[in-house]
């Protein structure tokens, strides 16, 4: 195992180090503005009452839960094709973030549904899909920690991510078929028939941007950590041999 194998990891740390303060600041501002606006300064929905305020966290979290997996898929592919270490370490770094977003989407989805459906959990196709997604994240994360050799772990988890993506898509459609009949009226979104007025839409967009920025910031921080950890492992291995 060599040290800073390519110049890239080092350059990544330098560049991301410069970008981070801005990323943190922007994230904080966006989230604060979006959430405060959404929570305090929007009216209630005539059908869903004050629970509509949950969209400001449920929708961005759900979007990011999926987008994170897509990012992991892309970076895993880059690793398989180009052997770019920073890429696969970014995928590894992103997984816990994706899992967190998925859990938030699940919790807020269940809490939003509870007044509507009268139960704490319902096997609504969307919620079920997110539950399955959470399992995929768990499997990916667990495989990383179960394999000792880092390059082997990188390869195996990338293959898992690829195959998992296909099955995740399949599950999405399977679950829709599985639970078609129920709960179609009380769907967890602002109805497409109702015009989604700017009143709700504007703070929502800001929240979505805020969550994206949060994802980017966290990925930068965590990827830096992974890169440093890898270098640490290499140095320690060197010490043991010497």
């Amino acid at each position, binding site marked *: 195992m060599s040290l800073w194998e390519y110049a890239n990891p080092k350059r990544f740390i330098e560049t991301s180090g410069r970008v981070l303060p801005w990323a943190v600041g922007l994230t904080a501002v966006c989230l604060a503005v979006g959430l405060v606006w959404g929570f305090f300064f929007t009216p209630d929905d005539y059908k869903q009452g004050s629970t509509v305020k949950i969209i400001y966290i449920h929708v961005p979290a759900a979007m990011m839960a999926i987008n994170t997996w897509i990012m992991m898929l892309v970076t895993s592919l880059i690793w398989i094709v180009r052997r770019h270490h920073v890429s696969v370490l970014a995928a590894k770094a992103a997984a816990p973030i994706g899992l967190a977003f998925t859990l938030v989407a699940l919790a807020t989805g269940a809490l939003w549904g509870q007044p509507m459906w009268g139960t704490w959990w319902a096997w609504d196709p969307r919620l079920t899909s997110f539950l*399955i997604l959470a399992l995929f994240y768990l499997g990916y994360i667990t*495989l990383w920690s*179960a394999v000792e050799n880092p390059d*082997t772990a990188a390869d195996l988890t990338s*293959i898992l991510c690829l195959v998992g993506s296909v099955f995740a898509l399949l599950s999405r459609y399977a679950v829709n078929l599985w639970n078609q009949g129920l709960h179609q009226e009380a769907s967890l979104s602002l109805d497409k028939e109702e015009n989604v007025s700017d009143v709700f839409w504007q703070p929502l967009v800001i929240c979505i941007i805020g969550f994206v920025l949060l994802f980017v910031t966290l990925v930068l921080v965590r990827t830096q950590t992974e890169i440093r950890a890898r270098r640490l492992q290499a140095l320690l291995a060197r010490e043991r041999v010497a």
Partner: protein
Amino acid sequence: MRALLLRDLRLAIRSGGGFGLGLAFFLILAVLVPLGVGADGRILGRIAPGILWVGALLACLLSLDRMFALDQEDGSLDLLATSPIPLEGVVAVKAAAHWLVTGLPLTLLAPGLGVLLNLAPPAYGWLVLSLLIGTPTLSMVGAFGASLTVGIKRGGLLLSLLVLPLYMPTLIFGAEVVRRGAEGMALATPLALLAAISLGAAALLPFAAAAALRVNLR
């Protein structure tokens, strides 16, 4: 390749090979569920398709971790990797052996267990058909999972964590076929999708599994 298949089959059927373990588990499950859920025939009949499919799925899991691990331990996996048969072929043969020894017997036993669970009469044929089409997927997906975890000590639990989510589409469509069959509803869609997944898995997963094996054999 035929020699490899016969060898694997012989190994599985020999003592300690695990043959019959899956069947026994399947049977036990069919006893456990009524014990846990209550003896009401109507309820049992309604959940029977799901129980039978989940049972088949779990029984398939039992013998997965031995698929490559035994060969890897004694070095024969390295030999197989350098043999004239492509590694993808080796994976396919091992999955086929697994199916012949696990999935197929489960499929044949299932109607008997359906009787225990008060499965509706029209559903029996669909039960066998759906399992016949779906269990090869379980073996193939299981082979993929086994190829990922072959180097991991005591990786059985991790194998389950990785493989069970991949089983879900097959489970959903398979059980749906049996449920709809029980009520005489149209089931072409789930049946077709079940078959499509089987074909896709058989065609594509050997490549993914072989890639994983090559990584683990490095």
